[in-house]
Every structure is written in structure tokens, then in C-alpha cells.
């Protein structure tokens, strides 16, 4: 059993905003900061565009973890989109709990265009955390 858990390769989706966190992810690349291959990025113009259905669909279709990233508070390219996302995030976490999905599978993090190292660290930490949690409970059924 232990061995099987170690080999578990989670599938993680990350939503990034065009102006800050996607640029932060690019900077991790240009700086050659390595991180696990488990995360795939979806680029949106603003984290405020992230519809709760995107997150819930991701879990329904088999994501083991989902990351939401955006500009730091006060830095949003669209003034307040990140605050809008943050407001939804509280509800989303609660909803996940009710659905039997561990809320720790969803994480919100602010990443600036200059924080390549922070982005890489976020991917490393998230991958390790989801590995500890094991496959999504929705997958097992």
C-alpha cells in the first residue's frame, strides 16, 4: 500500500492570470527553477474570470488538485478582479467540503510577475501535499 501511494502522480490544474501569475510561471522557466511535471496551466486574462464551474468541473473530470493564482491584492491589472475571485474562493472551499472533496485540494495564491521562485515552490509544495492526500475521492468511485 505504502509503495502504491509513493508512485501516485497527481493531476493538478493551475489557473493563472495573464498579467501576474502566468508571467511568474514564465519567469520560473527563464530562471530554470525546476518543479514537478504534474501541473498544467490554463491562462485567463484575470483571476476574476474564474467561474466556480471551472473548478468544480475540474474535480468532476478527475483533477486531484486545483490551483488558483492571481495578482497580489492591489496589483490587479483589472483593478479588483482578484478580490472578486477571493470572494468566490471562500464559498468554493466550503462547497468542496460538502461534496466530500478535501478543501486542501484547492489553493489560492497571489504571485507577481517577479516571483518565479515562489511559483516553482508553490508547485513543489502543492504536488507534495496532493501526493500525501492521495487520489481525489471522486476518482475512486
Amino acid at each position, binding site marked *: 500500500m505504502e509503495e502504491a501511494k509513493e508512485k501516485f502522480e497527481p493531476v493538478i490544474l493551475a489557473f493563472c492570470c495573464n498579467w501576474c501569475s502566468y508571467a511568474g510561471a514564465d519567469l520560473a522557466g527563464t530562471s530554470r527553477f525546476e518543479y514537478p511535471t504534474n501541473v498544467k496551466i490554463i491562462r485567463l486574462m484575470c483571476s*476574476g474570470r474564474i467561474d466556480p464551474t471551472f473548478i468544480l468541473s475540474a474535480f468532476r473530470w478527475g483533477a486531484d488538485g486545483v490551483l488558483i493564482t492571481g495578482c497580489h491584492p492591489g496589483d490587479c491589472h483589472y483593478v479588483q478582479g482578484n478580490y472578486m475571485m477571493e470572494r468566490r474562493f471562500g464559498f468554493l472551499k466550503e462547497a468542496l467540503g460538502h461534496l466530500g472533496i478535501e478543501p486542501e485540494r484547492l489553493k489560492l495564491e497571489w504571485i507577481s510577475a517577479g516571483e518565479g521562485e515562489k511559483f516553482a515552490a508553490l508547485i513543489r509544495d502543492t504536488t507534495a501535499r496532493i501526493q500525501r492526500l492521495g487520489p481525489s475521492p471522486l476518482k475512486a468511485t
Partner: protein
Amino acid sequence: MEEEPRIGVFVCKCGVNIGGVVNVPEVTKYAKTLPNVAYAEDNIYTCSEAGLSSLKEAIKERKLNRVVVASCTPRTHEPLFRSACKEAGLNVYLFDMANIRDQCSWVHMHEHEKATQKAKGLVRMAVARAALLQPQEEPELEIKDSALVIGGGIAGMTAALTLANQGFKVHLVEKEAEMGGNLRRLHKLYPTMQDTTEILEPTIRAVAIHKNIEVMTSTTVSDVKGYVGNFKVTTAKNGEKSEIEVGTIIVACGAVSYTPPKGLYQYGVYPKIATQLEMDELLRIGKIEPPERVVMIQCVGARKGEIRALDLAGFPKSDTARLLAKILKAKKEEGWPYCSKICCMNAIKNAILIKERFPKTDVIILYGDLRVYKEYEDFYSEAREHQVKFVKHLEEVPPEITQRPEGKLTVTAYDALSGLEMRLPCDWVVLSTPLIPHKDEIILARMLKIPISADGFLMEAHLKLRPVDTQVDGVFLAGAASGPKDVPESIVSAKAAAGRAAILMANKKMKTEALTSIVDEDRCIGCGLCEEVCAYGAHYLEGGKSHTIAAVCRGCGVCAAECPRRSITMQHFTDDQVLAQVRAALMEEA
């Protein structure tokens, strides 16, 4: 009728940058198996001349109606590939990228097999989205060739003249009865010591007689509607309203000198305590007896947001308790958190003026940090030559001012270097107060939908890259409206703002964002949530339905995510397109 998607996939090796990690031929082979993919090839450098011609040729010969390039980041290379698509006759919005370098090969350099698998996934996601992409047009707006300048100070007048000299019609609104703004109260300007009138009078005259400038004094702006190129402005004069239509707006409402509350440094309590502005006026009128000593205190009401923690180690022990009590009191004192940057030079200016008129008067400037930047360092040296004394005092302990029965003042402060108490008898105390935001700024900010910075000034679109633009297209900032500025800085920003406005008006037309939200009126229930969450005022309710003003929408998509009826579509990032990517990301490789 809609064509079936025929997607072309171009996988870039980027030399060894991608090719050295990811098995590119394998990714290309995989791409060919994906739905709707009509063609796939790999290139050594897709962005090279050869790569781009190959891409353009393939679009034409293979009748591709969608293109995916799997290479680097769209943040740097999307414009290049888009223009290649355009040259081949393809709408640029039918293009997408998969970032298999910055977000794959470069961060998984030691995991070739896994990186190849991830690259396949990223291509699959881009292809899934590309199949659903729709062509978009960037709408063109007419720009009216007239401008509104709010504020008739040096910045507003300069902006108006700059535009008027280029042939644009300018409406200049000034709420006071006369133009001139803060300079009307000033006597001399640092560091040249010119009379203010030397600059002000010719400028006012030039504005007044200019055939392209309509000056409206004693007038305020009471409402602004519309958007870039087509603003409808309502002005009010003695309660009488009139409407003007302009293409651009320059806000030059300026700043005001902070007047300390009664009792702060005994201001308003003892008669011979003045602000620098008041001292400037006193010197102009000449109503001042030769003083024996004048003490100036810097940063009164400024830089008080964060009082630095005090290291008490070096202080005389007997004074520690008193010091602590004073610090606590000081922290309670309200003030503006920023450095107003003109006050040091202003104090030096008045100090030199006093010294020139009364050479025997002792002038002491108590400062915490003296900030004399650029050429003002020479100005500081000049003051030193005039025997002006600069004393660094402990800012954490505000100087105390007492008045003796015969009217002489005593300033008690602490020397920063020795920590010892100084008692300075004097005739005048002059307080250097910062420039602070105008209360009108809040009204204007609401009207124009410009955010206000933490310091209370109107906020520029980007501190470094767009210093005179605002987040509202067609609205620009000149002078101290965006923060404390001296005369040359105000003039520079006014000319910059005028230049930015002129670009729009000279072009007469402007392309706006194609990525806007659109409302499905059949589904909309008119709840107004979109109107509430939009930072730009791009949604309005009419007839119980929401509408998008395309010219104002910036394409963030917040409204689409918030709409409880899912009646708003964010073009180019539609629910279907994003969900297709999500689904593709989670599919197992065949």
C-alpha cells in the same frame, strides 16, 4: 454556415531549448491524432523567417482555419505569430499557443519522458480550445478633436496651451474666479528665486487670448458621461448648467498645502507660528519685523504613517522615561504617510529669502531627513553659505513649543546625534507642511471612475510605464493631481498628458479591445450584479436588461464569472473554451 475546424499544429524545437528535453517529433505525431487537427509539423525555430513562411504556406495550402503553435510564451511571441496568421489571411483570434518551453522544457530539464507527456497534454489543451475559437473584430471608435482640462493652475494651463497650439479645441474649467492655482499664493520659486508672476502672468495671458481655448472660470464639472472619444461633460457656473462634448479629458485639479489642525505645534494658538506658504506670503507683503531667530520644522503632518521604532540605547538614561511618553504621544498624532518632496526645497527657499532680507537673523531648519535631490543639492549648499543651520533632530519626539509672556517662543527638540535636549528661543516658528490631495479629487475620481491611491491622490495607470495615463481610456493626469510636484515637474507632466491626449485626437480613430463581454438578453434577468462588479462601468441596465459598452469593457471577464444566469459571454475566453481546456488537461493520453 460555420466551417469545420481545420487546425494546424506547429511544434517548435527552439533549437535545443525545447528539443533537448521534449521529444518534439513524438509530440507532432501525437498532435496529428487529435480531433480537428488537419496538419502538424515541427520546426527548429517556428519564429524564424523559415518557420513563419512554412506556417503561412501551410495555412494557405492546407486550408487551415485555426493555428496552434507549441513553443514559448504568448506574452512575448503571440503578436509575432498572430501577424503571420494575418498575413496568411487568418483572423488573429483563431490562433492559440501551447507554452511547452517556459512552462515545460525549462522547468523539467531532467525529466525528458515526463516533460514529453506534459507537452502532449499542453498541445491537446490548446487544440481543444482552438477548435472553439471564433474570429473577433476590433471595433473602431471616432475620437472628437476637442479636450476638457479640469483645473487652471500651471499644469492645467500648460496642458491647455500644448493642445491648443496643436490645433485642438480646449475647454479649460477653473473653479476659482481667476486662473493660476497655487502659484497665485506663492512669491518666489526655488531654486531660481524667480518671482512667480514672471511665469504665471505670461501663461495666463497666453491662455486667455488663445483662439482655441475657451476658459470657464468660477465653473465646476458636475457630471461626466460617455467614454474615450465621446465624453459628455456637464459644467456648472453659479448653478447654471451647460453641456460640452469632448474626446479627451485632462485632470489637473492640483493639490493643496496642508494646514495643521489648531494646536499641532501650537499652530493657531500662538500668533507667530506659520506654515511655509504663509511665511512666503508674509515675506511678499513685507509685513515682518527683523527677527532674531526663525526655527523651521520639517515634515509637519508628513511621513507620519510609519514612525520608525526608536533605539533608545544611546540616550541619556535620565531622559528615557520622558522620551517614551513623548513617542507614544507622537504615534497618536495623525499625519500623511508620504514624503511630499517639495517641502525641503521650499524651506531652504524661505530660509535664504529671510537671510537675504535680514542677514543677522539666525535661521535653523530642524529636519529628520533632508531630501534635496538632483540640482537641489547646490541649493542646499547655497543655504549653507548663507549660514542657514541644518539640525537633524529626533523626529520621533516632536519638538515642543512654548511662549514666554513677552511673546518670544521657545522650541524644545532633541538633537539626533547627541540625543541631548536643545532649547531654541526664537521669534517665528515655520512649519513645513506637505502638499495633500484636494477634496475635489474624490468627487472627480468618482465621476471619472479613476481609482485613488493609498495616499489619496488620483492614481496613474502604471507608476513607471504609464505615469500620466489613467485606467480610463482618454483621461489623463497633469500636475499635482497624481501626487506632490513642483513647477517644472508639473509642466513636464502637463506636456506629457497633452501629448498622450493628442495622439488619440490626431488619429481621429482608435481601435478598442476585441475581447469584451456580451450579454444574452434572452437569458438576462436584469439583476444588475454585472453592473455592480464591473470596475470600469462597462455594464448598464436598460429596459430590465444588462448591456455592455464595448468601448469601455477591458475584457477581464469578472462579469461572466459572476452572472448567476450565465447570460454573459466573455469573448475569446468563453466558458466552453475554458472548459474544453480543463477537460483536455484531465484526459489520459491515448
